[in-house]
């Protein structure tokens, strides 16, 4: 709200995911592939394998065209994109880490130079000098990962930086080491996977088989190490955050599951390539590449999901509102905005004063400054679908708007603004629905899914299932006044029929539920 909001119809988050997903898949190859080039050259020269050396020359060209062009430019692309979508976070990351970025730039510049000289040097340089360039390339590329890893992990686990704002405290944060190891293994695995592409177009079957086996030596052990790294990584993530990937948040959980499955499939495919390595087909290697890409993308989605509602954990919400007041916050904290009102605080809104006539228009502007960093009206993470799916009417929407921060393990920031502004947002959200809400649901499961499942998980120790009175009549009566029972609950005004159905269903489900990680209610 400090900056204007770019209204991307299909979803700014989707655009970000696209750019970042493509970039990381190439940038990790740029690191691991560098070591692959130089060690393969050592191997080929040592074993006097002229064919392997011949292939490696072509592979170098492929490597440079992929990493130096697409990899480097898409990296700048991430920077362009975050500046457009999340300028406040970008500005913070720039000011906190200027010297980190500047150091990374030095490595990047050397890296690009070494890559080009390594490529052009194949025909010109004596092997010893050529290998130097290979090593300089790999070392500088790895060092750029060493730097950028500090900044990425800082966003998830800022550690003591939150208290002392010291550069090195934030840099060597709790997830720094596991993430570095995780990403290094990923980079090495990708080196072997990308090698399959250029190997598969070789005509010489014996050479192809040699490359495929050599590539597997990179891919298979690295993939086997990844779960170990992931386990260590997860140990360092606060459990209340991690529970988002263990059922509390649909996207996070789904992505985590997908990452595990796809990692397994990648490993399987990498092993399958070894069955008949001399007959590896380009189509097969492209499939391996695609699966590996999806696995990696899923991992990055998990990382981003568990970080929510923050973009910098415990410091800045995804919608550019600061978590706590501090000098220079510009008034952009939840508490200050709740006092002053979002329409008065935000710079880029035209409806400064609420009137009955401008409620929907003002609500739309509120949606834009508070919600559009993750949601669209009706496409990517579209709120219209969410509401339609649960058949909320205006009253329920209004009740839910007040409880956003409780939903799905607290993955959403609290609404920042006045009660009247919540009404305006509600008016806008209701205006998105074309058909009126259907009649009240009669069965308990539907009531749960529509009205409770946003916050309550189907776990034995979730408040709903653990603490609801067992006596049906007492339970149905207790559900009449939700805020009276528990002040943070939204005032849902369930009908008599809904309450009875819900109680009956909860009582039936209770004995079968698993204990869960979100026992303490997650965040």
């Amino acid at each position, binding site marked *: 709200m*400090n*900056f*204007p*909001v*770019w*209204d*991307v119809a299909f979803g700014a988050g989707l*655009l970000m995911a696209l*750019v970042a997903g493509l970039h990381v898949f190439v940038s990790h190859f740029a690191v691991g592939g560098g070591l692959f080039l130089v060690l393969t050259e050592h191997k080929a020269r040592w074993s006097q394998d002229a064919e392997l050396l011949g292939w490696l020359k072509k592979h170098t060209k492929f490597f440079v*065209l992929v990493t130096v*062009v697409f990899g*480097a*430019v*898409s990296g*700048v*692309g991430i920077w*362009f*994109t975050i*500046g*457009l979508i999340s*300028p406040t976070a*970008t*500005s*913070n990351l*720039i*000011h*906190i880490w*200027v*010297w980190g*970025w*500047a*150091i990374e*730039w*030095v*490595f*990047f*510049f*050397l890296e*690009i130079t070494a890559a*080009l*000289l390594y490529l*052009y*040097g194949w025909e*010109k*340089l004596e092997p010893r*000098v050529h290998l130097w*360039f290979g090593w*300089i390339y790999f070392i500088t590329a790895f060092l750029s990962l060493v730097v950028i890893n500090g900044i990425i992990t800082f966003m998830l686990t800022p550690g003591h930086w939150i208290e002392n*704002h010291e*550069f*090195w405290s934030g840099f060597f944060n709790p997830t720094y080491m596991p993430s570095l190891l995780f990403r290094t293994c990923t980079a090495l695995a990708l080196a072997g996977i990308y090698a399959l592409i250029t190997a598969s177009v070789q005509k010489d079957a014996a050479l192809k088989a040699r490359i495929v086996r050599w590539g597997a030596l990179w891919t298979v052990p690295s993939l086997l190490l990844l779960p170990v790294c992931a386990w260590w990584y997860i140990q360092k993530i606060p459990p209340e955050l991690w529970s988002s990937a263990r059922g509390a948040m649909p996207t996070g959980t789904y992505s985590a599951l997908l990452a595990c499955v796809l990692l397994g499939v990648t490993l399987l495919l990498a092993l399958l390539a070894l069955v008949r390595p001399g007959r590896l087909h380009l189509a097969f290697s492209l499939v391996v590449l695609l699966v590996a890409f999806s696995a990696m993308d899923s991992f990055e989605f998990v990382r981003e999901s568990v970080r929510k509602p923050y973009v910098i954990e415990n410091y800045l919400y995804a919608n550019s509102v*600061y978590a706590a007041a*501090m*000098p*220079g916050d*510009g008034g952009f904290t939840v508490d200050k905005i709740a006092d002053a009102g979002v329409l008065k605080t935000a*710079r*880029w809104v*035209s409806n400064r004063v609420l009137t009955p006539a401008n409620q929907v228009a003002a609500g739309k502007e509120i949606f*834009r400054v508070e919600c559009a960093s993750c949601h669209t009206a009706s496409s990517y993470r579209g709120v219209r679908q969410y509401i339609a799916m649960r058949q909320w009417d205006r009253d329920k929407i209004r009740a839910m708007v007040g409880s956003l921060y409780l939903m799905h393990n607290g993955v959403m920031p609290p609404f920042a603004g006045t009660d009247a502004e919540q009404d305006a947002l509600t008016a806008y959200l209701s205006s998105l629905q074309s058909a009126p809400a259907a009649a009240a649901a009669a069965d308990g499961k539907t009531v749960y899914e529509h009205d409770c499942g946003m916050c309550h998980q189907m776990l034995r120790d979730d408040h709903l299932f653990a603490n609801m009175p067992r006596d049906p009549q007492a339970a149905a009566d207790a559900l009449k006044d939700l805020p009276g029972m528990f002040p943070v609950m939204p005032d849902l005004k369930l009908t008599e029929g809904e309450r009875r159905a819900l109680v009956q269903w909860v009582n039936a489900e209770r004995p079968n539920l698993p204990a869960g990680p979100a026992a303490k209610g997650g965040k």
Partner: protein
Amino acid sequence: MMDTGMVPTIDPNPLPAPFWVFKLLLVGTFFLHILAMNFMLGGAALALLARWRQKSNPYGSRIFLDVAKNVPTFMAATISLGIAPLLFVQVLYGQYFYTSSILMAWPWFLVIVLVIAAYYGFYFVSYRAQQRPRAAGRVLLFSTTLVLLIGFIYTNNITLGLVPSRWMQKYFSGASGWHLNLSEPTLFPRYLHFMTAAVAVGGLLLVLMAWAKWKRDAEYARALFQFGGKAFLYATMAQVLVGIGFLVSLPRDLRMLYMGDNTLATALFGFGVLAALLSIYLMSDALRKQNIRLAAIGVTGLTVLVVLTMCIMRDILRDAYLKPYFHPQEFAVKTQWSPMLLFLGLFAAGAVLWVLMLKWYGFFTRTKDADR
């Protein structure tokens, strides 16, 4: 009093070094970036011109091949050296830069797509020009056009960032990120000023290439020198007109900075104009007398100085535009000593390693041989 309410506030983090440190880094790295950009774009444009005139110039086809081969490397340099000023401009001028970028978000985002397309095009030309000259010519035209378009988008963003008073009206007429800054009177003169400079400096690239081949391949080197030298000459002459046009298009109070109101700006401007005129004289003299050293060392050295003064003048102009809003003394400063010293140390070590890499590659040896 101008309304400054639309300018976003800076984030709470203090600058991790004094303002002037970043200013120096910003102007210094922008200077390097713009030199590389000039070589890349100027080189591509002149390669294209050589290809187009290969019927009248017996060496046209060879110049095309030789120059086009190097364009991807200058593209890599342009991007790599562009990252640093992109970083430092966000350190000091983020509020303006992000806002103008968001107002023209789609064209700005498109830059990335265009750069990738242009870059692959340049590589295609570099690798395939020999075998497929016709296709290579077309692809080079395509990539060069994309680069010209990228430059135009940049000029739009930079100028839009200087006029906060125009932002609100643009934003409220549509937030989907399609606003260029076409109503800006300085837009086209400024853009032309940069593009013309690129052709001139591209001419110097050819002169430098001719110098490297002067003894080994005398006849061709002379043709290259003539072609590049003339390009420099004509582009710099045109630049005198374009530059005047740019100066005239500036608002009066800003124009007067260079005409007495600001001593440094006036001195730099005076030096720039005189040095440009001198370089025209020296280049025509060098071309007449076939004096490659005068062109390669004298004119290039002088031009590099002119580019540096232009970068400083550009910075003065930016701060003059933003004077009602931008107050450097408002930055909180808390120097992060150890990361800063680490950067400076690595930067120095990196520069040494970079030069060593070029040396190991034989870059300097060849030049020396050629000169002997």
